[in-house]
């Protein structure tokens, strides 16, 4: 009962499309985590909290600007910037003094941030969940493969490749990207040639935070905006970063694709047991490639 009653080619293609839109969010959030992990060597558990704050800020800012289409676009732009600013304060105020510490210490330190941010969200927004409506032009769906596909998911499908291209340009074509990659390999040597490594690290951390906030802003109109939304995403993105190869942004993209697509296809093929599919994929990948699919920077 329940197995493959709904299986046909059109449904399969549709489900891949739905899975890809989910991949977008996973990729954006996990690429930020991977960037910080790869360059700064910080396993930032508070990354999920920044994602949650991004979603709450989007909710508040969108309503502040009138709740319409303009409010939505402004909130989508401003809330990740606010999260990035918070990242700047965190990095300059605390993290830059801790880069040489053991990973376990950093892990505990960032974990304590998740508790602080959790209480902060409760103080500012209260414990009730919030819901942000989609702007009118994103409401409804279009037909793809004979099935409805939400218009907003189409927007997500467009955003994913744009972010990936932007990150590729940043890391491969800009000076800061090249320096960051070099600093990730040999921090002392980069410092010896007169580059202010501390500032490069700061910039990378801020970009990582921006990506977390941007992920939160993108999901805000589709989900419950609630305390605890940080827990789910941090677990999934850490798994994605691990199967992709620690600190490798393209690994994060590959990991997000595996996670998002196995989830969507699992729901179609064996809906009763769909929960296990992405985790099964993680187990299979790590069995054959314990260090992840692509080269780890650790």
């Amino acid at each position, binding site marked *: *009962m*329940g*197995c493959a*009653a*709904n*299986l*046909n080619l*059109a*449904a399969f293609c*549709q*489900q891949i499309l*739905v*899975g890809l*839109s*989910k991949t977008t969010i996973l990729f954006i959030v996990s690429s930020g985590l991977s960037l910080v992990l790869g360059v700064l060597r910080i396993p930032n558990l508070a990354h999920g909290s920044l994602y949650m704050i991004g979603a709450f800020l989007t909710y508040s800012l969108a309503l502040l600007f009138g709740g319409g289409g303009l409010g939505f676009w402004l909130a989508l732009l401003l809330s990740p910037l606010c999260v990035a600013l918070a990242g700047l304060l965190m990095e300059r105020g605390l993290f830059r003094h801790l880069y040489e510490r053991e990973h376990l210490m950093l892990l505990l330190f960032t974990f304590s941030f998740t508790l602080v941010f959790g209480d902060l969200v*409760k103080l500012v927004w209260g*414990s*009730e*969940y*919030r*819901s942000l*409506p*989609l702007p009118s032009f994103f*409401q*409804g*769906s279009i037909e793809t493969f004979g*099935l*409805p*596909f*939400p*218009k*907003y*998911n189409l927007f997500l499908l467009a955003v994913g490749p744009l972010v990936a291209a932007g990150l590729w340009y940043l890391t491969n074509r800009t000076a800061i990207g090249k320096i960051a990659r070099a600093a990730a390999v040999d921090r002392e040597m980069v410092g010896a040639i007169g580059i202010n490594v501390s500032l490069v690290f700061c910039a990378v951390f801020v970009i990582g935070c921006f990506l977390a906030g941007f992920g939160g802003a993108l*999901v805000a109109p*589709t*989900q*419950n905006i*609630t*305390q*605890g*939304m940080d827990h*789910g*995403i941090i677990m999934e993105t850490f798994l994605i970063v691990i199967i992709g190869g620690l600190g490798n942004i393209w690994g994060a993209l590959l990991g997000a694709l595996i996670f998002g697509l196995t*989830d*969507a296809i699992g*729901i*179609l093929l064996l*809906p*009763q*047991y*769909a*929960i296990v599919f992405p985790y099964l994929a993680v187990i299979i990948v790590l069995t054959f490639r314990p260090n992840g699919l692509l080269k780890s920077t650790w």
Partner: protein
Amino acid sequence: MKRILASTMMVSLLLLTMLPASALAAKPIHVGIVDCYSGPASTYTNDVLDGFKLVVDEVNAKGGVLGRQITYTTRDSKFKVGLGLSAAKELIMKENVDILMGTINSGLALAISDLCKNEKIPFFATFAKSAKITGEMGHRYVFSMNENTAMIGKAAAHGLALKPFTTYWIAGDDYEYGHALADGVWNNLQQLKPGVELLGQSWWKVGEPDFTPYITSILAAKPDCVIIATGGRDCVPFLKAAKATGFNEKVPFYMHTATELSTLKPLGLNAPEKVIGTSNYHFHYPATGANKAFVAAFQKAYNRLPKVGALYGYTTAKLIINGYEKAGAVNTEKFIDSIEGMAIDSPVGNLTMRAFDHQMMFPMFMGTTAKVEGYDFLMPVDLVTIPGSDVIPSVEEITKARKQ
């Protein structure tokens, strides 16, 4: 020496008259409340507390029950069974509570129920919906103050059997509540309408953020109707995804609490229409004087409309007060005897606490969501009342469950 003695006596007398009246009054009746007050569950539980306070404050202002005030102490379980159980123990041991009530978490309700059975303290389960509470794990000291999964199942099956659907899909939360609810609906529906066919099932984790892949997968199977067994915080994102995919326009679906204010209010006018739902309470239905008076009092006290939890808090307070009054003494055994089979007035009419299993017999209201002029959120329309006596499990069913 005499003068010193006389002045000491005078001062003592003066001090005695200055003592607050409460210090000389009888010991209050102390209620301990354990519930989840942090996270999404607080949307439901704060209303239970406020509904309870509304009645208790009014009674206290009139001098209390049997000359005693009713006081209460709350503890936050944070939806964790261990934390909630320790809080319940602390309330019994240190705070010496006479009664325990609360919890939206079924696992915690069952744990506190077990504790109260041993400690011989009455426990009023206010929001946990597991049928086990008064079913197979029921006992003398536990009372259920809301509808359970068996009652929801019967009510939904009654309503769905009247509709022309034959093929179904079931989807829901992969934990106790989801499975119990789905089983309740499906088993009853099969009995009422033997021709129904289940095409398949989907189960997601509690707190699933994105329901779109589940919905597209269900649509591909083309069932006549879908039973959604999801609760609490997952209702809102599910309905959002249903609206975004046009699920509600393509396939009718039933979801318990989909028509309840706690679910519809956060979505505003962006909730999907034509969703079939059941609930124990609506602020506008039944449009009786009792309900209107309750809504007015609640709005005056808290400046918001009461949700279903307010009814549970209200009825629990009423039952406690009437129970002690009838018992005539603050004595646990007499109190339990007096509330067994007791009927109380409520905003949804006369309610009876069934003596056999300590299950409050709430009616269920089934309706569909629609835009109604004058409201900035969707409202349930075409409401039908399914009496509590029609949905409560039979005494034979409870006896059988307890023997197993």
